[in-house]
């Protein structure tokens, strides 16, 4: 009973905070309230997610709300990213307030939409009804649209228009897919409230109409894939990521993409069981994953803008996660691990890019040269996160990518292995070529270095330390939780936890 109430609170707290932000009259108070609201959500969410990971799924509201290991894990990571980004937003917009770049109206708009987006993303994770899950995804698109143009400029409007239009159209396709999944239950005699419940579909997966399910999965993959930034549907992503204020870019890249990908993951076990465990859906995922990695690698070579570079990194890493899920077995486990690693690393990179951008007044990488000397803390943050992003050992991203490689090797997918390595190699060389002058290059601009406070240092150190620790040592409970989450996706062919133990160092 108690946990049921907590599930409701998870949506209510950010929604109420968002509404409250509209009523307050000082920009500082608004940002403070926002951070407090997010903080409460994080505490609540982690508590519930921890309970679920230890003692199994909880549901509420006649099974409309449902949290199992997969959603609990994703919810936990999302809240971690949201918490960090909110603290960063306090720093970032605090600077803008001091320099009077941010009006009260803009602060209000930002805080209410920020909390609204948190409520919408939470809804995606805790709803058992696939229709409501879709509603949550579309709501995040619409709520975050205006976050891109908190500062209205020609470019930010252009980015926002592309984002809203491309994602709305994409997500409409996902709705078509949801309808087709509903249509595939014809003849099972389900009642209206049960038709789109994930738990019901999962239980009846083997007796769904396979042809209908295949058509549905194509629509779903293209639809949610657009929102997740899978190539070739990624066109909106570099624009939106580069134009949005840094805290917003961090959330976009850090967890909004994963939220859409989570929706695809939800359908994987249903589609696999419904199409007779032939691996049909998984092969599609591998294809989209590889295309994303290769397209991103090509574009990373020619970037001049730091935030656009990071945006293409997102396309690459979302591709890697998709590839991992497609490979199945150990790959699924690694993909979920990679989700956390990528989100942590990418948020840190965007934090650094944002603060350096504020100091230098530009995101052009030629002008940002020598950033480490001007701002040591954020310079280290940027360089560290770029190194981790390209998969350097011993950061955690290296470990998860290695596990995905091993999964490819185990399943004998040599072509996949070669293409993945080629893409990752190009990214490694390309991004390193950008990163080194960025840090040690000759400073061209005359910039007043801003001293980094305790909070800022903490925001750099915390993600880096976490990435390092997770790269060297995976705590037992964390591994169990990851396995439980991965088992939800690969329900069709469970891999024992023992066989996975061998790859963790």
């Amino acid at each position, binding site marked *: 009973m108690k946990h049921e109430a907590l599930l409701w609170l998870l949506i209510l707290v950010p929604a109420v905070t968002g509404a409250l932000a509209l009523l307050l009259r000082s920009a500082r108070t608004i940002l403070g309230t926002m951070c407090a609201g997010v903080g409460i959500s994080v505490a609540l969410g982690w508590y519930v997610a921890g309970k679920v990971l230890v003692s199994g799924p909880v549901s509420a509201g006649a099974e409309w709300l449902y949290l199992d290991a997969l959603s609990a894990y994703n919810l936990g990571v999302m809240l971690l990213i949201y918490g960090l980004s909110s603290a960063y937003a306090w720093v970032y917009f605090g600077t803008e307030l001091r320099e009077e770049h941010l009006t009260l109206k803009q602060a209000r708009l930002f805080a209410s939409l920020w909390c609204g987006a948190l409520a919408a993303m939470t809804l995606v994770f805790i709803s058992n009804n696939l229709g409501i899950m879709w509603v949550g995804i579309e709501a995040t698109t619409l709520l975050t649209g205006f976050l891109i143009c908190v500062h209205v400029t020609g470019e930010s409007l252009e980015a926002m228009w592309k984002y809203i239009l491309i994602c709305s159209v994409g997500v409409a396709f996902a709705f078509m897919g949801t309808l*087709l999944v509903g249509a595939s239950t*014809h003849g099972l005699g389900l009642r209206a409230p049960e038709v789109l419940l994930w738990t019901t579909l999962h239980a009846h997966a083997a007796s769904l109409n396979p042809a209908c399910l295949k058509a549905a999965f194509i629509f779903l993959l293209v639809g949610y894939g657009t929102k997740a930034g899978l190539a070739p549907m990624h066109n909106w992503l570099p*624009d939106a990521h580069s134009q949005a204020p840094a805290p917003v870019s961090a959330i976009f890249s850090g967890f909004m993409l994963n939220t859409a990908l989570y929706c695809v993951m939800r359908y994987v076990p249903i589609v696999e069981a419904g199409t007779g465990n032939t691996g049909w859906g998984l092969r599609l995922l591998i294809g989209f994953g590889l295309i994303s990695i290769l397209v991103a690698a090509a574009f990373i070579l020619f970037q001049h803008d730091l935030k656009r570079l990071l945006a293409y990194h997102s396309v690459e890493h979302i591709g890697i996660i998709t590839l991992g899920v497609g490979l199945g077995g150990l790959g699924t486990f690694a993909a979920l691990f990679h989700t956390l690693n990528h989100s942590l690393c990418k948020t840190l990179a965007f934090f650094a890019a944002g603060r350096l951008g504020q100091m230098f007044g530009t995101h052009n990488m030629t002008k940002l040269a020598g950033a480490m000397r001007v701002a040591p803390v954020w310079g280290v943050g940027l360089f560290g996160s770029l190194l981790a992003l390209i998969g350097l050992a011993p950061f955690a991203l290296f470990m998860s990518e290695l596990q995905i490689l091993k999964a490819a090797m185990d399943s004998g997918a040599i072509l996949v292995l070669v293409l993945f390595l080629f893409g990752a190699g190009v990214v490694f060389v390309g991004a390193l070529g950008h990163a080194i002058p960025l840090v040690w290059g000759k400073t061209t601009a005359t910039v007043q270095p801003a001293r980094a406070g305790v909070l800022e240092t903490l925001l750099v150190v915390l993600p880096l330390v976490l990435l390092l620790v997770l790269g060297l040592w995976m705590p037992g409970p964390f591994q169990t939780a990851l396995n439980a989450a991965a088992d939800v996706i690969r329900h069709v062919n469970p891999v024992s936890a023992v066989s996975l133990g061998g790859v963790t160092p």
Partner: protein
Amino acid sequence: MTDLILVLVMLTNLKLLASSELGASIRVVAVQGVMLGLLPVLAHVHDLSLHFAALAVGTIALKGAVFPWLLFRALREAEVTREVEPYVGYITSILVGLAALAASFWLGGRLPVSTVGASSLLTPSALFSILAGLFLIVARKRAVNQVLGFLVMENGIYTFGVGIVAEMPFLVELGVLLDAFVAVFVMGIAVYHINREFDHIETNRLDRLKG
């Protein structure tokens, strides 16, 4: 009766492809929305439940009145000429539309969904609306026109939903309708901002971000 509405929906799509005036286009989409709102009522005329009645009223109010009002307001505030300004000419558009119609009938017959009790025109009509909507988004410069394309596409998916998944829970339908409303609302505000910033609402000039 259902067939008549579905045929009319297809005709409104063709009319949209040929329409050269934005105001007329908005009105055509409004008419299409009202007709689609009537669709579930007519399909369940003998066993009309509160669920379908409420859904019909909501759909008609939104698609027939609120959306056109929002779009006309965006158009008025943008103070632009009302020419559609196509990338693809009207004659070509009609030809593309006819080809899309043929493709919809072909595909509609092959799509593996059981349409027991529903009209055989339903799937082709839904697919045609989706294709026509996509074409309008790609082939027209005006931001308002792209919103209309999005609405036509939504209408297509709605048609599909009414016929195929009659058992859809009410709450989900409500959520979907709410999302559509917010989408048009947000796009309306965006059109207004774009116009103020650029002195036009032609999306082909939104081309500063590349690579």
